[in-house]
């Protein structure tokens, strides 16, 4: 235990950047190999391709699906996500703008948000099914609802944390109210907004899968139960992995965007405003 602590306290001498990158890639490859190996061994031991399909089977299923259903499913899910997320972000930003700008409206918007926020998107599924029927409306609504809160909460926190000194500095340099908004408040809040957008995407992705599973007639989540009907568990696994890979890619993409846009910040990736 204490040796381990030592490792943390005294980081090894730095190799070159290229060398470190290589080690990093190697570590990931080794880790993945171990997981796939364990999976393979387990599936051989169990020897039941329904209960636990082997990695090779799942990979083949995935290749087959790539030319068949999977492309449609991914497109359907991305359409749900695109529409719902865009609506959620736009509404969240608009509500945040209103509530930070007008104290009167803040006193209504804020409690409303706080009342609704504990009710997770998932809890809306039955009502959404009643409202939209089994259709794309259910995942779109759920994604919209799920992405609304993180972006709202973070944007409000971002605007409220703006350093009064920076506003004073802009004022004494002769900036107008408008310029203070565009050149001080907005850039200062930007890291929080981006962090909110990332959080929103994360919960939206989860809500999407749940909504498609239970209340949609298309998309990756819907496909899970479809294949399960035929006990095509290799295909189920292929879809599960696709969900994971896509989710990972989205998060990595947004993280990179976040780091790029807020280059000026010493700790350029602000995580949640808790």
């Amino acid at each position, binding site marked *: *235990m204490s040796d381990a602590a030592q490792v943390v306290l005294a980081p090894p001498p730095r190799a070159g950047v290229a060398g470190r990158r290589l080690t990093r890639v190697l570590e990931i490859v080794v880790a993945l190999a171990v997981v796939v190996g364990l999976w393979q061994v387990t599936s051989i031991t169990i020897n039941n391709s329904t209960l636990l399909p082997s990695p090779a089977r799942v990979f083949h299923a995935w290749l087959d699906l790539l030319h068949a259903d999977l492309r449609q499913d991914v497109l359907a899910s991305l359409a749900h996500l695109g529409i719902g997320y865009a609506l959620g972000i736009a509404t969240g930003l608009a509500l945040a703008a209103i509530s930070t700008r007008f104290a009167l409206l803040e006193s209504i918007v804020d409690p409303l948000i706080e009342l609704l926020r504990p*009710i997770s998107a998932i809890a809306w599924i039955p009502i959404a099914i009643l409202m939209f029927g089994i259709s794309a409306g259910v995942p779109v609504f759920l994604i919209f609802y799920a992405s609304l809160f993180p972006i709202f909460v973070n944007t409000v926190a971002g605007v409220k944390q703006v350093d009064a000194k920076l506003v004073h500095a802009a004022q004494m340099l002769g900036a107008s109210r408008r310029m203070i908004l565009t050149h001080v408040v907005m850039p200062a809040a930007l890291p929080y907004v981006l962090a909110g957008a990332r959080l929103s995407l994360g919960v939206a992705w989860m809500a999407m899968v749940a909504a498609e*599973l239970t209340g949609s007639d298309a998309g990756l989540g819907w496909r899970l139960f479809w294949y399960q009907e035929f006990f095509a568990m290799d295909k189920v*696994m292929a879809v599960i992995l696709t969900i994971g890979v896509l989710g990972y890619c989205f998060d990595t993409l947004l993280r990179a965007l976040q780091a790029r846009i807020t280059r000026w910040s010493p700790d350029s990736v602000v995580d949640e405003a808790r």
Partner: protein
Amino acid sequence: MNARRALLPLGFFTVAILAWQAAVLHSGQRALYPYPTGVFEAATRTIEDGSLFAATSQSLLRVLIGFALGAAFGIPLGVLMGFVRPVGRAVSPIVDSLRSIAPIAWIPMALLWLGIRGNAALFIVAYAAFFPFVVNAAQGARLIDRNLVNAARALGAGRALVVRSVVLPNALPAILTGARISMAFAWGSIIAAELAMGIKVTSGGSGAVGLGQLMVSTLYVRRDVNGLVLYMIVIGVISFLIDLAMRRLQRSLTPWRT
């Protein structure tokens, strides 16, 4: 002045609720739309026949077990990842990619492996609760001020004491934050899992029915809109209480944090 500020939203919500009630009653389609007094009736009915309490406690029980499982596996792994850098570097890509899989996506596999009796839902919950523990424990164990350890050493602390009195307290706030997120995830996931199971498995064992399954039968069998709204409110209230309790716990266990 504060009282006046509270008056506006209070008035707004009172008017909104009254308007909601009036609108539904006037439309003459009470069966189609939920309305406040209807929700209240649904509440008294389900409380009296005990079905609300039974389902809620069933769901909560699964959440608690799943949460405990998530903690039991997640904290040791996370602390190990934070302490031993190579382990952390090797394991974190795996953790990250598994974390990106929405827990609920595992439901077909979980149903296959663990059956419809409720253990499938338990698997989903444990899976959801596991990752916040891992990520936060790893971060807490990794981020330690070297001066604190040196100070303890200089004061004569042995290695065991350093770990017990510096490293673990240092990681505790992060672990508790992880616990709070875990709990929230677990509560969201149990409802999702139960909904999916309720839709998939039409004749579930009645003893294992949680809030999610109750919602499905309310939707498809009883067609009771007011009931659905009631369950949503219950879900919201419970997640609010959970968050409140976790924050209290966090404050009382780490009083040195502001």
